[in-house]
């Protein structure tokens, strides 16, 4: 029995009951389309989160003070020597050391961060609780991928002299000054009662859902030390920009080597920690991967239901065509020919469903869903195609075998 012949016989069978074939195909179509769309939604969400984090800077390391006692206790018995005379502080001198092009070739830029909690901004009658309050140098803006919507940043001179100027985020500008954010430039706002002149408004970054990156006030670090934290040689953290996302790990090692030497600690008793944006990215990716698996599982179940539909219809077809099977066997069809005829029939149904489902999946993924733009993954298309073929085989084999096992005399007698 030639395969071409089996295909021809199978096609005749599929066409014999068009409505039934279409409905069965629809079951597979919906299953495949939902797999593609839901996995595309998962991928779209994942990529949206990655893009959000990317906007915040994917090549950024944050060096912060270790607030737990572990590092201190371990180092407690050692003689405190050299530059570590000011305890566990992260200093501007530490920061300067990190830009050494020989010791830290993979570090592009650094910025100090001095923070204060519970800062409230006021402008005329409006008040706003600032979510992120940062005292730093102008390099902070380029490291954070910030751009200006209006006005200008403050200068390095402002940063060290402590000029009372502020660069504010879009949310802050809207809450305090009103809808036209550009009009905020040049206005004087009060931060915890201290007057600051708004020199610039940052361009909107958009919310990533967890926090609002636009709810921010950035002022010169020395101004923050003077007016909020009180003078202290220690910074809250140092933001370090690596030369590219690829050299993050090298940059992190260099930072650790320099700071270990300066603080006279080892990896066992470090008094600071380096956080990597890549780690945050990994966490976010794990979360979205879980979401994707969940969505995929739901779609998989609908595909399974579609497969059972194929099996059901094939069983009906075999029963209905018992007599035809008897005739075919009487005129010389072997078991193999009968099996291949019905198997190919179920394959045709599920493959047509699969191909149409892939098309429907692409169309369905063109529209935003759950707030994200789904992104069809090429591998889900191949997977869907293979899965629909597998459904045809797996759910077709039992009915096909049932047909092939019929005894010709029983089948011929069947009314």
């Amino acid at each position: 029995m030639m395969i071409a012949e089996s295909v021809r016989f199978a096609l005749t069978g599929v066409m014999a009951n068009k409505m039934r074939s279409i409905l069965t195909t629809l079951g597979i179509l919906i299953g495949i389309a939902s797999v593609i769309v839901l996995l595309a939604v998962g991928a779209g969400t994942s990529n949206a989160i990655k893009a959000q984090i990317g906007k915040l800077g994917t090549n950024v390391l944050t060096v912060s003070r270790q607030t737990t006692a572990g590092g201190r206790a371990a180092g407690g018995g050692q003689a405190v020597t050299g530059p570590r005379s000011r305890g566990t502080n992260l200093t501007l001198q530490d920061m300067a050391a990190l830009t050494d092009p020989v010791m830290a070739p993979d570090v592009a830029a650094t910025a100090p961060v001095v923070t204060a909690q519970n800062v409230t901004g006021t402008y005329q009658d409006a008040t706003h609780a600032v979510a992120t309050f940062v005292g730093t140098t102008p390099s902070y803006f380029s490291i954070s991928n910030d751009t200006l919507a209006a006005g200008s940043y403050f200068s390095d001179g402002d940063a060290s002299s402590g000029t009372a100027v502020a660069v504010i985020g879009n949310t802050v500008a809207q809450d305090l000054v009103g809808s036209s954010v550009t009009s905020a430039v040049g206005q004087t706002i009060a931060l915890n009662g201290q007057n600051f002149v708004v020199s610039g408004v940052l361009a909107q970054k958009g919310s990533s859902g967890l926090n609002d990156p636009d709810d921010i006030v950035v002022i010169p670090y020395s101004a923050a030390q003077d007016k909020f934290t009180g003078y202290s040689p220690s910074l809250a953290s140092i933001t370090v920009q690596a030369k590219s996302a690829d050299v993050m790990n090298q940059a992190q090692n260099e930072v650790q080597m320099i700071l270990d030497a300066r603080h006279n600690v080892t990896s066992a008793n470090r008094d600071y920690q380096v956080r990597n944006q890549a780690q945050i990215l990994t966490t976010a990716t794990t979360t979205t991967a879980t979401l994707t698996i969940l969505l995929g599982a739901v779609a998989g179940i609908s595909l399974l239901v579609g497969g059972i539909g194929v099996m059901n219809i094939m069983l009906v077809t075999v029963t209905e065509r018992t007599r035809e099977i008897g005739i075919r066997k009487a005129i010389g069809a072997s078991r193999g020919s009968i099996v291949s005829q019905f198997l190919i029939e179920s394959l045709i149904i599920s493959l047509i469903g699969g191909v149409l489902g892939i098309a429907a999946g692409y169309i369905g993924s063109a529209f935003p869903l759950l707030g994200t733009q789904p992104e069809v993954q090429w591998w889900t298309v191949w997977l869907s195609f293979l899965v629909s073929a597998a459904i045809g085989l797996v759910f077709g084999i039992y009915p096909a075998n049932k047909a092939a096992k019929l005894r010709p005399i029983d089948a011929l007698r069947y009314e």
Partner: protein
Amino acid sequence: MNDAVIQLDSVSKIYGKGEAEVRALDSVSISIDRGDFVAIIGASGSGKSTMMNIIGCLDGATQGTYHLDGIDTGTLDEFQLAQIRNRKIGFVFQNFNLIPRTRAVDNVSMPLAYAKVHRKERRDRALEVLDSVGLAERADHKPSQLSGGQQQRVAIARALVTNPVLLLADEPTGALDTKSSHEILDLFESLHANGRTIVMITHEADVAARANRVVRFQDGHIIEDHRIRAVNAHPMATAVPA
């Protein structure tokens, strides 16, 4: 190997066991020669249908041996039996048993598909045989578009297409009107005249009378084996005009 197409030796077909045992065929022995035209007759339940199933390799014997064209069918597996049905036997059924929604030419060429003959060759051969049964111009008709007599002629064409050693007909005129019945029987006679071996199962005496030899079954036994004409006699000479 002798010239017998069919050679049954003490063939029994037993259903059930012990008390409920039914012997559909009870130790039947018969030999049918090449070129003969044999009618098997008997009342329903006489065993003639069981006989047909065994001769047609649709069912196996419980006891005894059956040689078809010199081959001991008892030694064959299912696949080989399918091949035997395909190459050596042409079936004609009472209800025609054509595949629905399938053109006459495709019905006729179907056994050739199972014999792995090429598509073009199949079609040519099918058209040739359809022509020989007088249905060349109906090749593209579906069974539902054909009369009973025409359907039966398509079925005969399908039975002949592989050029089998045996044409096995089960009540071939049972579902036909008198005129169509005559046409079909005339066709059988002309096939026989051309040397075809035909075994025909029927319960009608006038249909059986067209054969060379009549074998009567009752309760699983052959109770009469009556030769009307010589094996290779050409009954066309005495046939009624078509």
